[in-house]
């Protein structure tokens, strides 16, 4: 599974690694990755390790700071896959926000984090000082973080670096917005997502997935919309087997 980080704290340093914990182990906060230097350093090349979310460098050691499963991606990336509900803004992530107020030249957007993010009027495709975008309080907006760190107010934009919208902007006429956990969102957005493939077989619908745990669904009828929303909320804690059985039962029942 391709990892999508919700916090971009990466630290790289050169050590020779002998991992005591295997990939796939469940780790708790306070556990230490032990880096043991063997007797002869001359014949082994120092390896660079990239530590993702859930791992922190503490002097010479790497400590685990969240509980979860240790994952590894070739060649040298390690991170802790934890189940979490609360979103912490990270740069470059695409989220669904709700406009809460307009003041001066910016909109204030609720993204589910500890602070409201700001979104400038000019950060929409084709927006100028004379040509303001048609955005009202309460609208849903799919946008990306350009500034998101712990010390500053987060900032969003609805254009990419070339000035094109690229799918971002205001959306949501009709449809249902609901909240799921961050782990489920990451599984949905993974390139070879099994959940997405199983859902596609049910019936046609539109879906927007934000990395802050918010999902928006719209289908032809209200009933189908509700079915998709309920399925997504319930397949959180199911194994692949149970999920496929459930989807099959619903697909048979709704015909």
């Amino acid at each position, binding site marked *: 599974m391709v990892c999508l980080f919700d916090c971009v704290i990466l630290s790289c340093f050169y050590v020779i690694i002998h991992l005591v914990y295997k990939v*796939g182990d*469940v780790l*708790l*906060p*306070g556990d230490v990755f032990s880096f043991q230097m063997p007797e002869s350093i001359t014949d082994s090349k120092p390896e660079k390790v990239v530590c993702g979310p859930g791992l*922190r460098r*503490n002097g010479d050691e790497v*400590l685990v*700071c*969240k*509980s*979860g*499963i240790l994952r590894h991606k070739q060649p040298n990336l390690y991170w802790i*896959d*934890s*189940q*979490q*509900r*609360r979103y*912490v803004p990270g740069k470059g992530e695409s989220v669904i926000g709700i406009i809460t107020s307009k003041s001066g030249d910016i909109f204030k957007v609720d993204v589910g*984090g*500890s*602070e*409201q993010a700001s979104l400038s009027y000019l950060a929409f495709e084709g927006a100028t000082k004379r040509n303001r975008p048609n955005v009202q309080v309460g609208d849903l907006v799919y946008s990306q973080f350009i500034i998101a760190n*712990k*010390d500053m107010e987060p900032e969003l934009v609805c254009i990419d670096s070339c000035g094109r919208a690229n799918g971002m902007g205001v959306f949501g006429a009709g449809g249902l917005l609901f909240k799921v956990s961050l*782990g489920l969102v990451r599984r949905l957005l993974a390139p070879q997502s099994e959940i997405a493939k199983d859902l596609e077989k049910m019936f046609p619908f539109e879906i927007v997935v934000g990395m802050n745990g918010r999902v928006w669904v719209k289908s032809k009828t209200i009933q189908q919309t509700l079915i998709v929303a309920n399925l997504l909320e319930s397949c959180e*804690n*199911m*194994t692949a087997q149970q999920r496929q059985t459930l989807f099959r039962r619903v697909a048979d029942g709704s015909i």
Partner: protein
Amino acid sequence: VDLKQLCCPTLREFGCEQNLLSRPDGSSSFVQGDTSVLAGVYGPAEVKVSKEIYDRATLEVVMQPKVGLPGVRERAREQCVRETCEASLLSTLHPRSSLTLVLQVVHDDGSLLSCFLNSACMALMDAGLPMSCLFAGVTCAIDTDGQVITDPNAAQEKESRALMTFAIDSTERRVMMSSTRGSFTVHELQQCIAVSQKASDKIFQFYRDSVRRRYSKTL
């Protein structure tokens, strides 16, 4: 020195469940014998400007007794739990935000403060808040004969001449917080600390097993 007590302290049966409430960001329920506590964590969330700290998160602990309104006793216990949590959370990663921990007594049959500490630790882990270490609460009572009883129930607590609760950290087994009532000698205090450190091994192993069971479906 009671060597048997030192080697394998007897604790009541534990039970724990994580992620059982739908509204809070993290929740847990911890049961020790008949004492049962429910904990909910919200955060990192918005904080009032009057309460915000510029470089770290503001942690607030709220304790609800089973009957009646929170009083002075709850406030004292809240402070004990808050100091312990602040020592183990990496609160500098979320400046100007608030973390709220709500603890609800479901049933009190002795060792309440250590049950609060254990459920708080599991709830903080469940919420995914970054922590530098885990902590476990252990209560010891010294009865009229001078015997050390770990994890006493309400009847044993009432007859004891001294009651001590310690919060032990997971990395070096040091005492993070201690709350005591009654009279005891220095030697008895040291004995209780040693017994608590030994008992915390069982609790940390229990944490590990609980979290492993929780993630077993997604493995």
